[in-house]
Each structure stands twice: as C-alpha cells, then as structure tokens.
C-alpha cells in the first residue's frame, strides 16, 4: 500500500498493540490547535446568544458597510457590518450553528447507515454483499455536484435537504470501509470461537466485529465533518443551500459578492470562520488517522 512511511503496518498487528513510535511533537501541537479550533466553533454554536454582541438579524441602514473597528475608531462593530448594516461578528457566531449542524448530522446519518450496511455485507456476504457493493459503486460514480443540483431542484433548498443530500451521497464510503474491516476479522479465531459456543450473529457483530471498525470509521467521520462543512458552504453560496434568512457562512459570502469592490471585510471574515473550523476538524482527523488507522493514509 502506498502512503505509509517506512514498513507497511500489518493491520492486525498495528491494531493489537499500541505502537511504540511516539507522536512527533509537531503533530501533537497541531492536534491541540485543532482541538482548540473545534472547541471554539462548538462554543460559538452553543453559546451564540451569550457571545454574540448583538442580534444577527438586526439591520441598521445608517451603519451599512461599516469597516472593522480598528479602521473606524469608536465603531461598535468589531469586524464591520454588511450591506444592510447587520453586525458581521454576530452573524459569524450564529452562522457556526448551521455549519456544525449540517456537518455533524450528515456524518452521523451517513455513518450509521453505511456502517450497518457494511457490517451486514461483510459478515454475511452473498447476494446482499453483492447488491450493497454494486449500489455503493453506483453512488460513488455519481458526481456529487450533479446529484446535489438535481435533488435540491426537486426538494427545494433548506437545511434538512442539504443534510439529506450529503447523507445519501456518503453512506457508500462508510459501507466500503466497514465491509473491508469486517472481512479482515470474519474468519478470526475469536469469531469462530464465539460461533462455536452459540453466540448469536447479532451479538457477534455488535460485540466482536463492530469494535474493530470503530477507529477507522471515526477517522473517516471526523474528516467528513470538515468536508461536509465545505460542501454545505459551497451549496449555500450557489443558492442551493440553507434559507437566506438564517445566518450562514456560505450565505454571508454569497451576499458579500456585490460589495467586493468596496467592503473587503464583508467577504473576508465569514471565509476565515469556515477555514478555521474546517481546519480544526482536519487537524483532529489527521491526528486520529495517524494514531489509530495508519492504513487510511493517502
């Protein structure tokens, strides 16, 4: 396999005992930075009413496109206002709710469905396995953006529609991953032993097979949260995402485009918010991958 430095890890051996190589200092550092960024975005989402300096929807037309406070001494708006005088800082803080909700819910839904299908396919094999994997192939060969455009055109834009699109397009990655992890352990002695003493299939899958897949799934899930936040922002930016009346980072960027000549802050800060949040999940996911599933590295 490509990707791992040095000797390729034997999957079972690497998993069986804690690896002796210490995580390099740099990587540990980036992990804490990532954790801080993720923590910060959660804090913003949960504590929005306490943290936001003002109402994210309150427009003040006399304060349209006010520059950030350090360019305009005395201004009460820390990073300025948008085209109808709404406080950008407050909108960014509230906007974290949309990003995190879409990112987390879509990953949980697709992760649970994909994992369940992958476990069953890998454990039982046969026609069910064949069917699931062919469906997964089909799903993975359908370009996301085309799928999203058509589905949103049918269902209309909105938060749950976005989550639906993301969940439907991503179950296949989990199913494939979990299936391959299941195949690795299906014939293992301890599974056979459990069979021999009459443990039910359901219990074997739940107690003995699933735990082997958890680390790989959690790595994929963490990195998918990052990716899904980006996809949601892009769809909302195109007008295919969440309702414009809800503050969201993609929506703010879409609104800011007409004022790019005059108000740089309007298009700069929402993008920074996306970047830091996504980077947080990427850093944590990267660390998890290095730690628990080196075979996923690419």
């Amino acid at each position, binding site marked *: 396999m*490509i*990707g791992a430095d040095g000797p390729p890890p034997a999957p079972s051996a690497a998993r069986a005992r804690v690896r002796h190589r210490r995580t390099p200092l740099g*990587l540990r550092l980036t992990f804490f930075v990532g954790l801080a960024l993720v923590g910060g975005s959660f804090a913003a989402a949960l504590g929005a009413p306490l943290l936001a300096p003002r109402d994210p929807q309150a427009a003040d037309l006399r304060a349209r496109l006010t520059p950030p406070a350090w360019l305009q001494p005395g201004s009460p708006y820390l990073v300025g206002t948008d085209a109808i005088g709404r406080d950008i800082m407050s909108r960014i803080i509230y906007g974290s709710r949309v990003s995190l909700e879409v990112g987390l819910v879509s990953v949980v839904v697709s992760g649970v469905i994909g994992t369940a299908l992958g476990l069953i396919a890998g454990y039982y094999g046969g026609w069910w396995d064949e069917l699931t994997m062919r469906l997964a192939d089909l799903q993975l060969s359908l370009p996301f953006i085309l799928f999203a455009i058509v*589905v949103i055109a*049918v269902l209309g834009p909105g938060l749950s529609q976005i989550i639906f699109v993301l969940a439907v397009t991503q179950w296949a990655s989990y199913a494939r991953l979990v299936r391959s992890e299941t195949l690795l352990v299906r014939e293992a002695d301890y599974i056979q032993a459990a069979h021999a003493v009459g443990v039910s299939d359901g219990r074997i899958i739940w107690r003995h097979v699933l735990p082997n897949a958890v680390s790989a799934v959690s790595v994929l899930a963490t990195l998918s949260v990052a990716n899904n936040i980006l996809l949601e*922002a*892009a769809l909302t*930016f195109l007008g295919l995402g969440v309702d414009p009346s809800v503050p969201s980072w993609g929506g703010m960027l879409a609104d800011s*485009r007409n004022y790019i000549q005059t108000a740089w802050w309007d298009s700069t800060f929402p993008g920074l918010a996306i970047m830091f949040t996504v980077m947080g999940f990427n850093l944590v996911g990267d660390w998890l991958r290095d730690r628990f599933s080196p075979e996923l590295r690419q």
Partner: protein
Amino acid sequence: MVGYLAARTGGAVVVLAAITLFVAFGIRLTGDPAVALFGGAGAPSRQDIERIHHAMGTDRPFIVQYGTFLARAVHGDLGVSFRSGQPVTALIADRARATLLLAIGGMVVALAIAFPLGVYAAMHRDAVTDFLIRVASLLGLSFPNFWLGIMLILILAVRLRWFPPSGDAGPVSLVLPSVTLGVILASTLVRLVRAALLDALGQPYIRTARAKGLRELRVVVRHGLRNALLPVVTFVGLQFGALLGGVVVLENVFAWPGLGQLALQAVSYRDYPVVQGVVVVLAVGIVLVNLLVDLSYGLLNPRVRVAS
C-alpha cells in the same frame, strides 16, 4: 483482458443509464417548464399550457419521453432547449470549451505545484520539511475553494488590478480561476506524490541504481518518479468528478461561461433537455475518464486485473 474490458464497460453503461434515468425523472419533479417559460408575465391560459406541453412533448408518459431522449442521444441528438430553441448540443459545445479550459488550467497549476514540492519533500525526509508540507496541505484542504477565489479577486483584481475580476476577457481571465482550482487540488496531490515517491524509492531497483553510482536527482527522477506516476495518474483521473464540483462553483464566482453555469440556469428555467444534456455529457466524461484510468491500471499492473 477481454473479459476485464467487457466487465468494466458494462459497469460504465449501467452507471450512465442510472444517472440519466435519475436526472430525467428528477428534473421532471421540479416544476412545469411551460409555466416557467411565462416567468410571471401574466397568467397563461389552460390551452396555452397544453399547447406548449404538446409542442415540447412533455404531455407524453415519462417512459416515452425518456426512451425518446435515449434513442436520440445515442445518435448525438440531445434535443432542443425549451427556452432558446437552440439545439442542446450546440449550447453545450459552446460552454464545454470554457469548462474544459478551466479544468485543464487548474490541473496544470496543481501539477506544477505538487510535483516539485512532493519530490522535494520525499528527498528531504526531515521533521521540519515533513511538518511544513503536512500543515500546508492541510491548510489547502481547509480553504473553501470559492472563498479562495473571492480573496484572489479581492487582492489581485480589485486592489492590484493585475487581472480582470470575472468574465471571459481572453487568456488572462483564465489565470485566477485556474490558480484557485489548482491550489486546492495541489494540497492533496503533494501528499500523494510524496508518498508514492517514497514508496518507489524503497524498492530494490533504487538501491541498484544508486550502487551504479548515478546522481541522486537522476535516481529519484528517472527511477523513482517514473514508477511513482501510476498511483498519481490514477488519483488525478479519479479526482475528475470532484474537480468538476469545484469547477461549477468557481464558474459562478468568476462568472465563467461554462457548463456549470449553464446547468444551474437550465434547472431554474426547468429547461429539461438542457439539464439532461449537460448531465449526460458530464457523466459520460467522468465515466470515460474513470474507465480509462481503470484500464490503464489493469494494463500496467497485471496484479489489479479483475479476477473473474
């Protein structure tokens, strides 16, 4: 080999059939094209609507419409736009050039960044270089591509006025969107080039080459990189679908007259033939690229051939 070819081609046909069926069915759920045609300019009468439906052929059962579409598409006829009356193939040919230019431009930028950096990182496997490359590529993966585009417009077009901010005003217009697309793509590619090269450099023939006394750069490029190309090519091919997603969004940011813009407009006008046409062309492109990648892989590396 023939069996492998047949299996893969058969798979590709199934995928195409599924995609076209899904799109043709889905787009018909989005709304009435006859009503969309009036676009709020007075309420059309029932007769008007029926007449338009008859002219468009949308009064026939779905299965007939889909069958007709397929039968014509096989002969290279994708129908006529409901809105402009132009043949869909002409509309697409016009826009496909722009999209292709952008995709190629992005790919060129990505390769130009990823190869030198990836090779350098593989040759200097110390903690600092590794760490920097890793952080840089993570940073690239965390940028929303459209926001990077906006920032480039803000700095290079609005402030410095080096480039036109949007539209298609000759080759200079291609620079900003290509760079945006390329930078994002390069962040994944750098890691891959580095990993594939390290993998290749661990092979016995590299030791032989070194033992012959070849210069290090020659060993790396001629013997290492050459063999590292295969996984990189595969990745680039398989990224084609994702690349397309990026292109659609960037076309919007840079007002670039490509297929993505055409599709988005067509969806809002309920222009079924155009939507179907764009999707078919893009899907055929993606499936074809994937197929070529698969086949070249099977040809170059006998271990990957389908077992059956």
